């Protein structure tokens, strides 16, 4: 009896030793960054291992390009930027833990997190710890507004994007009737699908054929056969789609299969090169709203796309072009550098002063010229950016006139 239990203890000890050993070796590369004293540190929260892993890895590439460019041209008032990238795994608890630990390490600001759910929990922490936090991707309305004065977003919420895009869409395709689709369980999709899209279509005088019965799908779903059959039966002129590009592509393929050929309007989450890559010919006449145009003639934008492509090709070979999230990540680093430069900050400035300068600088940011065009921060802490309604024509995004 005793020997048996002893064996058990040894096994337990063995496992615990294994844990500690890896923990110690693991800590090595994670902790080495905090000691450097002649740089300005910026924290970044991305999802590199969860559902958004491909996004997170590409976000990191975009930010690194910006950091390299800024450092090559002398840094911020002579002090180079050091980027501390942390992986949230897309989990809210991790976003909280990492916001706190980055704040504790004395970063000037935190870029991220990626998902709106993570922002909901990370923003209050940053606000409490008095560290500026800027998400380049979250699009759910009201999150920065609830966490004044330290939280910002360099992204455009869908209500603003669709206000401009919907009338153009209605006019371009002569739309009289639409059917609305969204994911009832996803906060962003629900906001776009039950509030923004219906409101704008009604304002444009379009009839919603499934009023009071918006079709709901599950994010991650690929089988849209039942929904498409039902939509086809209602025979609308167009579809209002509150979902991400993955679901939009799956929906498009099913539309094509069942012979339904009508234009589709979606929010910012539907704009991605992967929409065309996954949807092929089926996504023709899909219109997504964005604040980034990958074909921009702007010199800095073109140089960014060229630098980004080869690195991103290692992660998503079929879709190596930067999307709006990557462009916003790149731009956010430049924004931070711009504000700090204006405030005369370098690595000797005490952390509290750097953070205050960033907070006030961001709150008053007007017409900042970046690769997505001119950006201002409104009184809610959200970005006001240039709007591009983009339509898929012959396998390419074009600006919808």
């Amino acid at each position, binding site marked *: 009896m005793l020997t048996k239990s002893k064996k058990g203890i040894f096994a337990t000890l063995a496992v615990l030793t294994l844990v500690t050993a890896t923990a110690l070796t693991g*800590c090595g590369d994670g902790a080495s960054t905090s000691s450097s004293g002649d740089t300005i540190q910026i924290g970044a929260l991305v999802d590199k291992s969860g559902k958004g892993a491909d996004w997170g890895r590409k976000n990191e590439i975009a930010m690194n390009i910006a950091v390299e460019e800024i450092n090559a041209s002398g840094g911020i008032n002579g002090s180079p930027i050091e980027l501390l990238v942390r992986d949230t795994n897309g989990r*809210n608890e991790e976003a909280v833990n990492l916001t706190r630990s980055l704040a504790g390490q004395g970063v000037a600001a935190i870029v991220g997190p990626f998902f709106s759910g993570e922002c909901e929990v990370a923003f209050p922490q940053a606000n409490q710890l008095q560290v500026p936090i800027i998400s380049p991707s979250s699009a759910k309305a009201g999150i920065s507004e*609830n966490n004044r004065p330290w939280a910002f977003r360099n992204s455009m919420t869908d209500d603003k994007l669709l206000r401009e895009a919907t009338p153009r869409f209605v006019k371009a395709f002569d739309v009289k009737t639409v059917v609305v689709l969204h994911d009832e369980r996803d906060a962003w999709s629900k906001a776009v699908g039950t509030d923004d899209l219906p409101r704008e279509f009604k304002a444009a005088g379009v009839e919603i054929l499934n009023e009071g019965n918006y079709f709901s799908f599950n994010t991650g779903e690929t089988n849209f056969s039942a929904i498409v059959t039902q939509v086809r039966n209602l025979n609308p002129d167009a579809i209002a789609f509150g979902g991400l590009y993955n679901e939009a592509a799956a929906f498009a393929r099913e539309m094509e299969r069942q012979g339904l050929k009508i234009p589709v309007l979606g929010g910012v989450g539907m704009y991605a090169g992967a929409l065309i890559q996954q949807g092929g010919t089926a996504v023709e006449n899909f219109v997504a709203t964005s604040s980034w145009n990958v074909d921009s003639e702007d010199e800095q934008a073109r140089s960014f796309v060229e630098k980004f492509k080869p690195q991103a090709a290692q992660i998503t070979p079929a879709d190596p072009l930067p999307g709006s999230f990557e462009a916003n990540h790149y731009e956010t680093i430049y924004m931070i550098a711009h504000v700090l430069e204006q405030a005369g900050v370098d690595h000797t400035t005490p952390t509290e002063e750097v953070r205050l300068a960033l907070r006030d600088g961001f709150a008053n940011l007007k017409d900042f010229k970046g690769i997505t065009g001119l950006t201002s921060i409104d009184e809610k802490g959200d970005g006001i950016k240039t709007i591009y309604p983009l339509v898929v024509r012959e396998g390419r995004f074009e600006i919808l006139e």
Partner: protein
Amino acid sequence: MTESVFIFAGINIILAISLYITLSTGQISLGHGAFMAIGAYMASVMTVKWGFNLPLAIVAAAIMAGIVGVAVGFPALRVKGIYLAIGTLGLGEVVQVFFHNFKYTGGASGISGMSGTTLYLVWFMVALTILFAWQLTHSRIGWAFKAVHEDEVAAQSMGLNITYLKVTAFGVSAAIAGIAGALYSHYIFFIDPHAFGYHTSLLILFYVIFGGAQTFWGAALGALVLTLLPELIRGMQEWRLTFYGILIMAMMVLRPQGLISHDTINWIKDFFSKKSLPKTKATEEAG
């Protein structure tokens, strides 16, 4: 490691002990995320919408989750083993859909603005939960739970009221999970139904089985180790989940009974009594 890690660790310990209590009567629940959700939402509505203070909200969360737990406990009597596990999992999904569509608590958009949970409060509640679990396992009802687990028919023939015991276990367990939910929501500031899906329920099962389902100490240790582990292996970056999974698999092979079993507790007791033994001998000889 930052404060928040220890706050989540404390909350997970409470959840693990909560699941241990249902397991100690031989009932497996994969729906504990739902009880946590009910506690979290109840407490959040109390503080944010109705203006009560946090301690009162925690009590209300425990009562509300406990009532639902008892309500689930009765039909659970009819279902056993894997059927019960999957049935409770289903119930958890139904509760999630309910909160997704419940406008009063924000539906899919969630509810925000809760605060007040501190490290001291969490670990005070952990201490209370451990004390409660200790009292429970050493009480008559605790022994009765064990008897039901070992052999239900025999326990019944000995005059134990199986219905009462099993439903009580479910109710008490759910109430404790509700407390954990209240603490969680008032630390993380914002909750939406996604936070309490089957993933959460399965994680709680991980804690208990990894640490050892035979004693509540095992459940608590499992929660502590598995919450701190991802922080410790952060340097492995995107390979962390792979490692986490392999470690758990290895553990199940080496110690399917978990880190701590009855034998471990006995061994620790032996160890300390043996240590004191030579001492007394020595003093005797000296005397």
